[in-house]
């Protein structure tokens, strides 16, 4: 990645100021509220699904996480496939992108999109275009945290 903040000439800075006046500002507070409520709603559905699995099947709280996540991703797949997850995303922003359904949507939309290039190079090669960084940095972060925890336990701090 090159240097993001390239030096701007005075003319460029002047233009930037002029342009800022006309740039439609994002309604941050409204967006935050919308994201909060939609995200909360998705999580409520997840909790309901969890309870459903605990009540009707032989899952404990510990083990119900797996089928719940699978169901949520299945629902995300249906919504992405039918074409309305992106409308929800436009409305809610982070509220639909952060929960596991957002991750599912990222992978599934990329898979759908690249079907035209074949299964191996198209779908297989491009499926993790968006989610790849999530997986990579998530695993790496988990490794670092586990390492720190191990060291702290070894030295008796925890």
């Amino acid at each position, binding site marked *: 990645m090159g240097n993001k903040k390239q030096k701007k000439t005075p003319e460029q800075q002047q*233009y930037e100021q002029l342009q800022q006046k006309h740039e439609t500002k994002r309604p941050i507070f409204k967006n935050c509220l919308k994201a909060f409520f939609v995200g909360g709603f998705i999580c409520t559905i997840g909790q309901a699904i969890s309870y459903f699995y605990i009540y009707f099947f032989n899952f404990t709280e510990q083990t119900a996480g797996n089928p719940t996540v699978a169901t949520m991703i299945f629902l995300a797949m249906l919504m992405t496939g039918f074409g309305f997850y992106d409308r929800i995303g*436009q409305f809610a922003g982070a509220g639909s992108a952060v929960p596991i359904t957002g991750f599912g949507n990222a992978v599934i939309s990329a898979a759908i999109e690249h079907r035209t290039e074949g299964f191996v190079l198209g779908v297989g090669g491009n499926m993790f275009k968006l989610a790849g960084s999530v997986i990579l940095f998530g695993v790496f972060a988990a490794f670092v945290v586990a390492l720190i925890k191990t060291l702290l336990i070894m030295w008796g701090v925890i």
Partner: protein
Amino acid sequence: MLVGKQSWIFQQHPVIAATGVSGGPFEANGHLAEDFDILHDDLWMGQDSYEKAQRVLIEEAIQTVMQKGNIQKEDVQFLIAGDLINQITPTSFAARTAQIPYFGLFGACSTSMEGLALASFMVNYKGAKNVLTGASSHNAATEKQFRYPTEYGGQKPPTAQWTATGAGVALVTDKKNGENLPYTTSATIGKVIDMGLTDPFNMGGAMAPAAADTITAHLKDLQLEPSHYDLIVTGDLARVGRETVLDLLETNGLKMDPNRFLDCGLMLYKEDQPVQAGGSGAGCSAIVLYGHLLNQMKKGIYKRILLVATGALLSPLSFQQGESIPCIAHAVSIEI
């Protein structure tokens, strides 16, 4: 003839004898639906990929223009066109079907006017008798290449623009103007202007300086006042870019009449369509000019217009590498 620093005057008045305009579902629900020759109700157009669908759009536009212009492909000397997709493959593949000697062009969203300027030059100086020129874009194919997969739920900011799906092709010919058809009179080629903006979701703001620069150069080279034109139309600045360019021009001493300064991206869609700031794309300026605006001219509503197509010359890679967005604008004046 060269006038001023970067402009041409076409003394022979090359005529735009016919046009072919095809569009997609969004455009069918938009403001200018009646000015399209062919409209599709989904983005696939019976093909199995979006890029192939874009090729179909171009082929249909070429077929339509040759039909309306009553001309066979043997009589057309050159096809000069482009689009936004990598290596301009949809246009090249359409050229394969058309079997006309082909110039592939890339000017991002300013391709339409770049093509019209070159086509007019060729016809004016007897380099060709008939030239087909045009540009196209496809929303899904462009989103896939430049941004995110089409079904991805990412939120677009209010400054983002919607890439138009459509192709506009015109037949520029040297036949004398017996039937009151529009003709091109001059063109100004723009240079690349970069004001250091980096947000790919705010193309309007990035392209406005290029439009301002080309309009200023055009008026200076041809020694004209803005009021010389009934209408000055930009290609795809949309809401944010249009306000910015009006402000920028005024700051530099050129006051435009906002009622006679329009933008193709704003004209294309209705208020209730979710296009954020407005339309954009290489096809946007082509479909609005070669469809709606020329029809308006034929009805007598406008006699002299200046079309300034603006383009952002970035790629997904350049953006990731931290580069800012350089832009360009080309202007062509049309009279009837």
